[in-house]
């Protein structure tokens, strides 16, 4: 179990490093640092779910979270932020503020970063339950 955890952490950190590499290359190669906004978007994307999950635990007397409006608000904002991370480079490239190559690299890098954050949270939560 410990070896699997260490392997998971190593693989996830490699993927995170590749994602950051792609985003930084996409901004540094063309000397246009607007694509760093993607990193900011994906870094704040898990925060609404976390905050709203904390907020809903205080008065959890109803059924198992299905009718909880605060949790749904967090999910709505999360879906908004994830699509915003893809839509922002597309808008920037369509308006000729960044190059299309930079758009592709920042989208792929941002998705790698966000996938790393999500899968790290899942693995961490699974190990916490044991």
């Amino acid at each position, binding site marked *: 179990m410990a070896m699997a955890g260490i392997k998971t952490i190593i693989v996830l950190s490699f993927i995170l490093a590749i994602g950051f590499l792609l985003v930084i290359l996409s901004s540094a190669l063309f000397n246009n640092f607007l694509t760093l906004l993607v990193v900011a978007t994906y870094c704040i994307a898990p925060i609404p779910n976390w905050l709203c999950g904390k907020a809903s635990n205080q008065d959890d007397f109803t*059924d*198992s*979270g*299905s*009718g909880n409006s605060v949790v*749904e608000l967090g*999910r*709505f*904002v*999360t*879906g*908004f*932020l*994830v*699509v*915003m991370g893809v*839509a*922002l480079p*597309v*808008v*920037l490239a*369509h*308006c*000729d*503020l960044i190059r299309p190559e930079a758009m592709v690299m920042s989208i792929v890098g941002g998705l790698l970063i966000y996938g790393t954050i999500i899968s790290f949270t899942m693995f961490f939560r699974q190990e916490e339950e044991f």
Partner: protein
Amino acid sequence: MSDSRLFRFPKPAWLNSATTRSAGVYAAGALFAIALFLQIDAATFSKSHLNGSVFNVTFIDWIPGIFSLLGLLIINSIDKTRLSGDSFSYSGDDGVAWKARVVLFMGFAAMAGGLAGGVTVCVLKYVVKGAEWPALWFGIACVVGNAGVMMSTVVLWISQNMEDDYTYNLAL
């Protein structure tokens, strides 16, 4: 519950699960992001150097979007269980359902007004004055963006009305 069914085919079981419900909420947020970024794209494109026409996106193009956003907020802030509260009268005061219906009507009016305003802006500001394709995109983005906000509201409404099996069923 099965004898009060109207149609021959039962609702599929995945339609009531909590996973479908949360997926619907995520999809509503995604649709809203797409709608908002269509309008942001139109505004950015009109300010960039690619826009060689005389047309520009001004504050007028954002007014239908603001009304659609108001409609989304109002419609999804209403507690859906209040809408049918008059017939059961366990809520004590019987004016709540009436108030809820009035506020909900205002929300739907704002949403429909937003979509109609989007079409109005597209027609009056761009189509009538003969805008060609790169400038016509501003008007089309206004219409499609407002339609996207409306779709987001519909998806959010449907997924909020999905109840699990152990909760009561709200027939609307």
